């Protein structure tokens, strides 16, 4: 077993600032409603002298433009679960250690990822790409990894002896014991973990209680540590609320990118894809805009999902500024990579039809791409429809034109010759769209062959309905 621990010191901050990227000095507030103190500040705020533990008034006095936001614990949990979904691709046993750590068993994955250095590099680069600063440590014991991730970033100790040696030298303040335990132990003159490791067990239990001893057992691997395994959820729902209203589609792209990336992480964890998801933009007074993003085949890549959602969003006119964005994907079907013939030469870009279809739909809109199907109806304008072609119905015996006019129009000048006809078409009395016409194939003065009709019994009033192109 090798347990890796990832700690995210900036998690609370990025969860609170998820909706919009922080611009300028910003700080996070924590504490009771009565007395709220600065819990974290970004570098720009720190440059003004804003420090952890200051009151809001003090911080504002130092930096009037300070953007302060309260801590959002629900958002932190969601963000942590989102990171866990991404980590799930490296290990089958990922466990959340709130408020800001993730534990994962990587011993079984080392071979697949070519050893720890490669795996660690992939973890780190992936997390940094998503904008999560982190620290990382790995030991055979989950609790020990958790401790080292906090104090010794990058430490890997595959052997038990090494872990015990490092633990022994650790000051009590970093041992993960509760503050009250540490305080009482320090009062007794203990400074490092080695001092208390030497104590007889009953003595130690009397001083720090059962929980403390159990913790010390866990970090030394002397007792089993059962960690709940994180399970990828079966659907995706995420929502980001904005502090201010965002107007137009451009400012919405940042939260959108974040949502699609979270979705892609979940899809990778589930080894699934998504074929349809809904973006909901909420406006003032309960109004909302729904944008459905549907794909020809399940997709899973973050970049692709973002592009598809972005093109849809940019083509939508929003009636009002948006207050929140929500992404819901209810069905996450199994993802099947496109099959290719091994020996078939790849032509051009090597796209398959679903991919091309999607690219076209994303730019032109869903209505722009269509197929035509036959319908068993004698009325020419009803003998076809737009939709998925079904089985071939019986075709008319007479010749039909390749071009049909969207609606018949008067023919000027009159045709010069009748080549075939008349063909009487009389149908549709039952559905109110009664048609009674005599169709002729005629030639125009320019030599065109046209399909035109006359009302029965007349020789005047030619109506053009198609071209024999």
């Amino acid at each position, binding site marked *: 077993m090798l347990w890796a621990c990832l700690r995210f010191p900036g998690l609370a901050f990025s969860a609170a600032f998820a909706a919009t990227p922080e611009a300028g000095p910003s700080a996070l507030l924590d504490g009771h409603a009565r007395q709220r103190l600065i819990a974290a500040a970004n570098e720009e705020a720190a440059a003004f002298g804003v420090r952890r533990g200051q009151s809001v008034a003090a911080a504002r006095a130092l930096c009037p433009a300070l953007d302060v936001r309260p801590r959002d614990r629900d958002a932190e949990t969601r963000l942590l679960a989102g990171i866990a979904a991404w980590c799930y691709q490296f290990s089958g046993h990922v466990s959340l250690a709130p408020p800001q750590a993730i534990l994962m068993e990587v011993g079984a994955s080392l071979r697949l990822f070519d050893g720890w250095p490669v795996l660690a590099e992939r973890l780190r680069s992936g997390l940094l790409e998503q904008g999560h600063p982190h620290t990382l440590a790995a030991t055979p014991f989950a609790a020990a990894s958790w401790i080292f991730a906090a104090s010794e970033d990058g430490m890997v100790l595959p052997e038990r002896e090494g872990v015990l040696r490092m633990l022994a030298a650790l000051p009590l303040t970093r041992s993960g014991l509760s503050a009250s335990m540490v305080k009482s132990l320090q009062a007794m003159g203990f400074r490092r973990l080695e001092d208390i490791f030497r104590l007889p067990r009953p003595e130690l239990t009397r001083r720090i209680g059962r929980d403390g001893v159990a913790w010390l057992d866990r970090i030394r691997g002397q007792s089993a540590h059962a960690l709940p395994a994180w399970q990828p959820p079966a659907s995706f729902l995420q929502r980001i609320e904005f502090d201010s209203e965002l107007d137009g589609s451009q400012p919405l792209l940042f939260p959108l990118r974040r949502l699609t990336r979270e979705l892609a992480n979940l899809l990778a964890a589930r080894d699934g894809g998504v074929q349809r998801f809904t973006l909901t933009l909420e406006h003032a007074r309960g109004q909302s805009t729904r944008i459905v993003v549907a794909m020809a085949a399940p997709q899973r890549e973050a970049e692709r999902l973002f592009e598809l959602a972005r093109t849809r969003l940019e083509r939508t006119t929003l009636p009002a500024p948006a207050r929140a964005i929500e992404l819901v994907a209810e069905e996450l079907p199994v993802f099947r990579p496109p099959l290719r013939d091994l020996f078939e030469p790849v032509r051009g870009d090597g796209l*398959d*039809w679903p991919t091309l279809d999607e690219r076209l739909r994303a730019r032109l809109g869903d209505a722009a791409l269509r197929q035509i199907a036959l319908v068993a109806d004698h009325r020419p304008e009803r003998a076809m429809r737009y939709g998925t072609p079904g089985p071939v119905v019986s075709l008319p015996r007479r010749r039909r034109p390749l071009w049909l006019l969207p609606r018949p129009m008067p023919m000027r000048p009159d045709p010069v010759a009748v080549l075939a006809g008349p063909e009487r078409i009389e149908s549709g009395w039952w559905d109110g769209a009664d048609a009674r016409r005599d169709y002729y194939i005629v030639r125009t003065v320019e030599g065109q062959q046209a399909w035109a009709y006359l009302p029965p019994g007349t020789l005047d009033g030619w109506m053009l309905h198609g*071209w024999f192109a």
Partner: protein
Amino acid sequence: MNAIASPNLAQVLDHPGIWRRSADRQPRVRALSTGWTSLDAKLPGGGWPQGALSEILFEHDGLGELDLVMPALAALTQEHRRVIFVAPPYLPYAPALAAAGVDLRFLHEIHAGSTEAAWSMEQCLRSGCCGAVVGWLPDIDYRSLRRLQLAAETGDACAMLFRPATHAAQNSPAALRLKVSNSDEATYVDVLKSRGLLTTTAPLLRMRA
């Protein structure tokens, strides 16, 4: 002794990149039969050039200009290769298409404005998953034509472009240009330009009585 056999002259001349004026053999052009025997006989490779742009310039609607391409398109759809109609001027009429042998499952229509149409035609050609892309782009410029020709080469697809005959005098990068005109109540097809064809002064072909 040289281990590698040095090629003799005949083998060198056999290289597809070398063409000799005296040879009775036409330069190799991969083509898709038009389904019209008399037209096939006149075209290098015996049909619509593959991986290239063909232009069909027609004087009016309804001269049989679409009939010219239907057999080839029908053959493609029957082989389960996709045929895309880009910005057709009228409704492609399903019963007539089916009667011409087109498998409608492999026919797609893209409804788009002129700039979008050129873009979508290029995307389809380039993708490599379309057998033929047929477009109606009356006011396309030389640069876009060139892009289409390149896209057809990249995707090894058959590009067919319908334009009014008034553009016949314009320069075009298309590999094949046909003109469909009408006189004396019959339709004639004239080969204006054909890559790999020696004479362009062949007599007109009579297509439709």
